[in-house]
């Protein structure tokens, strides 16, 4: 395997190996750019280390470093130390994701223009349009092998999907199908096809679901232009007197500090760690943190409006058999203010095993109301609603004033208050979900509050104007031209779709730009 010298100042350092970092690193390596990828987590082998064990895998792949929460969101009450359900492992959260791969809609990329200003919301148009993204979406869908694109058949619908489909169609919903999924419905790209194991959230034991762990990372290694260093937690990004970044300090697997020089640094640590790293990299020259002239680093934290509906039926469903996110109803993802809110939401199936359903169904509850639902476990169907939440400047990732992590650095606090628009949309979505299940005979409907956030977005947002955000339309920071943000924290608004496909799309596009700028000697 290729190894790069710590003093090699010609490399691009990519921080993180998930959907953004892993994709960007591979795309750059394919173009001949030398890349060192620093990943905080360990490198697992899906054929050896993955198992169908909800708690076991959660302990193995999740980001469990100390974090605090504040705000009126339910997650701060139910899971005060776990604001996000994301990963610390090679492959990042592409190990855990369910695979739903949806393009953003044209109007969602110009939320401010299309919705109009909304009180309390820091809405902004993206500095890019759907037509800018379309060629890159096409590349991303091909890379991920998204079903219902590129001639790839849809996955067959499992029981949980069939319940949702029947209810939705009975109600007249039109856009109902088994999803656009980055899960092989037939063998493709050296990976096998889905055998309906369930346990998508625990890491796909088949390798049928796309994850950078076994696609982008090994592909990058084959080029000879790429080195990944697992168990390498970046602590600080350094810069020179000219205000250009020059390298990063990281703690290696033994906790020793190392310095890797860099020509370019790309931050892809997800929307909590990425702004935290920029804030923790404050210097005399940049006392408020790197790339933070706008004051927007860490702000506008979005996590999607979410909730779940689990319903009990008279007859068995066995929702756990088959893919976790097995299908979608897209009709409610339109912008239609007559519903009492702006933006829209998707309805997707979700399923959990007994261990996690007990933990997440109604956190903190007990007694017969709870156990009577659990007793009906195999008669339950589940669905998740996921919609656009409003960016709010006060919803923010900040550095905790007192709490420190294992490296002595301030831990991140994640503050989130629901916006009125979020609350109205959640109510609408829960009612819609209940109606779908009731249309096919649900006799009891449970409204499950949001899980810790898997869709973390917006904390280094993209803006046309340097004072409105952190990065430009290429993910390049407005302040420092050789510092990039390459993950979902770039999102200007959250839109209603699961974000991974767009993160991959932006990474492919960014790789083209970085390679071009390197070639021109601009960075």
């Amino acid at each position, binding site marked *: 395997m290729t190894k790069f010298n710590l003093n090699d100042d010609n490399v691009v350092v990519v921080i993180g190996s998930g959907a953004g970092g892993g994709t960007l690193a591979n795309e750059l390596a394919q173009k001949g750019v030398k890349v060192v990828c620093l990943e905080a987590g360990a490198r697992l082998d899906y054929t050896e280390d993955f*198992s*169908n*064990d*909800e*708690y*076991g895998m959660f302990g193995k792949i999740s980001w469990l470093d100390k974090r605090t929460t504040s705000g009126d969101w339910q997650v701060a009450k139910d899971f005060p130390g776990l604001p996000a359900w994301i990963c610390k492992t090679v492959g990042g959260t592409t190990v855990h994701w369910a695979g739903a791969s949806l393009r953003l809609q044209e109007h969602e990329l110009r939320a401010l223009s299309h919705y109009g200003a909304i009180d309390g919301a820091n809405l902004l148009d993206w500095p890019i349009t759907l037509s800018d993204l379309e060629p890159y979406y096409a590349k991303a869908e091909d890379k991920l092998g998204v079903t219902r694109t590129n001639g790839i058949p849809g996955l*067959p*619908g*499992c*029981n949980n999907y*069939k*319940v949702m*489909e*029947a209810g939705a*169609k*009975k109600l007249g919903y039109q856009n109902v199908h088994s999803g656009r999924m980055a899960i092989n419905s*037939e*063998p493709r790209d*050296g*990976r*096998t*096809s*889905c*055998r*309906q*194991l*369930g*346990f998508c959230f625990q890491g796909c*034991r*088949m*390798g049928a679901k796309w994850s950078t762990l076994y696609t982008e990372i090994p592909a990058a290694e084959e080029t000879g232009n790429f080195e990944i260093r697992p168990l390498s937690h970046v602590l600080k990004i350094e810069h020179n007197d000219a205000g250009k970044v020059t390298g990063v300090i990281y703690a290696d697997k033994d906790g020793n500090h190392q310095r890797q020089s860099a020509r370019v640094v790309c931050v892809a640590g997800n929307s909590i760690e990425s702004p935290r790293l920029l804030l923790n990299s404050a210097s005399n020259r940049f006392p408020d943190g790197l790339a933070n002239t706008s004051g927007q680093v860490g702000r506008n934290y979005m996590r999607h409006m979410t909730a779940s509906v689990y319903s009990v039926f008279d*007859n*068995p*469903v*066995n929702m*756990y*058999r*088959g893919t976790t996110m097995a299908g979608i109803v897209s009709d409610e993802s339109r912008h239609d203010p007559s519903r009492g809110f702006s933006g829209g939401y998707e309805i997707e199936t979700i399923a959990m*095993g*007994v*261990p996690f*359903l*007990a*933990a997440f169904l109604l956190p*903190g509850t*007990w*007694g*017969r109301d*709870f*156990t009577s639902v*659990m*007793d009906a*476990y*195999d*008669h339950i169907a589940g669905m998740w609603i996921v919609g656009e939440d409003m960016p709010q400047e006060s919803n923010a990732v900040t550095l905790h004033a007192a709490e420190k992590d294992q490296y002595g650095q301030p831990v991140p606090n994640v503050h989130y208050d629901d916006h009125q628009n979020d609350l109205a949309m959640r109510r609408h979505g829960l009612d819609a979900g209940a109606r779908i299940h009731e249309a*096919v005979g649900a006799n009891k409907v449970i409204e499950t509050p949001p899980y810790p956030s898997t869709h973390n977005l917006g904390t280094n947002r993209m803006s046309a104007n340097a004072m409105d955000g952190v990065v430009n339309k290429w993910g390049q920071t407005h302040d420092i031209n050789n510092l990039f943000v390459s993950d979902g924290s770039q999102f200007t608004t959250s839109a209603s779709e699961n974000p991974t496909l767009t993160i991959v799309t932006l990474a492919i596009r960014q790789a083209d730009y970085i390679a071009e700028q390197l070639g021109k000697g601009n960075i």
Partner: protein
Amino acid sequence: MSKSGFNRRQFLETSGRTVVGGVATTSVAAMIAPGGAWAAGLTTLDEPTADVLLRVCRVMFPHDKLGDDPYRTCVGGLDMKAAKDDALAKQMKDGAAALDNGGRKFLKKDEAAQVKALTAIEDTPFFKTIHGHVIVALYNNPKVWGHFGYEGPSFPLGGYLERGFDDIDWLPEV
């Protein structure tokens, strides 16, 4: 050979080494004798405390068709944790004693009264510690999964592709 296109039999042959294992079972279960007594070993908690905790676990998460064994496993887990955590041991002992008020009062109450007694303390650290432990220890125990109709790990069996992932037969035609 291509990685792809296995039928279930071929799949099972190639994945055979993982057919056993894969489930993280709690070793605590093995330490608790089934059928009633604590004879097989409380390490730290005394029996009166364990008896109260056993009832607290069941009243908190009552599943009438489950015997006492999975609840005993939960108490066994608390006992194991208490062995390494003096503060937890004291919390359990004091909490159980307070609930029982020095006699057998909690255990002698009917379920409704026991629920009322637990409701009165549901914001206490004692209650929250037990709740947080039992929600994992009870439902993450593979021995109870059959009761819920949950089949657990599917990879060792080749997934559900040929084992009922789409066998639902009672839905209306759409």
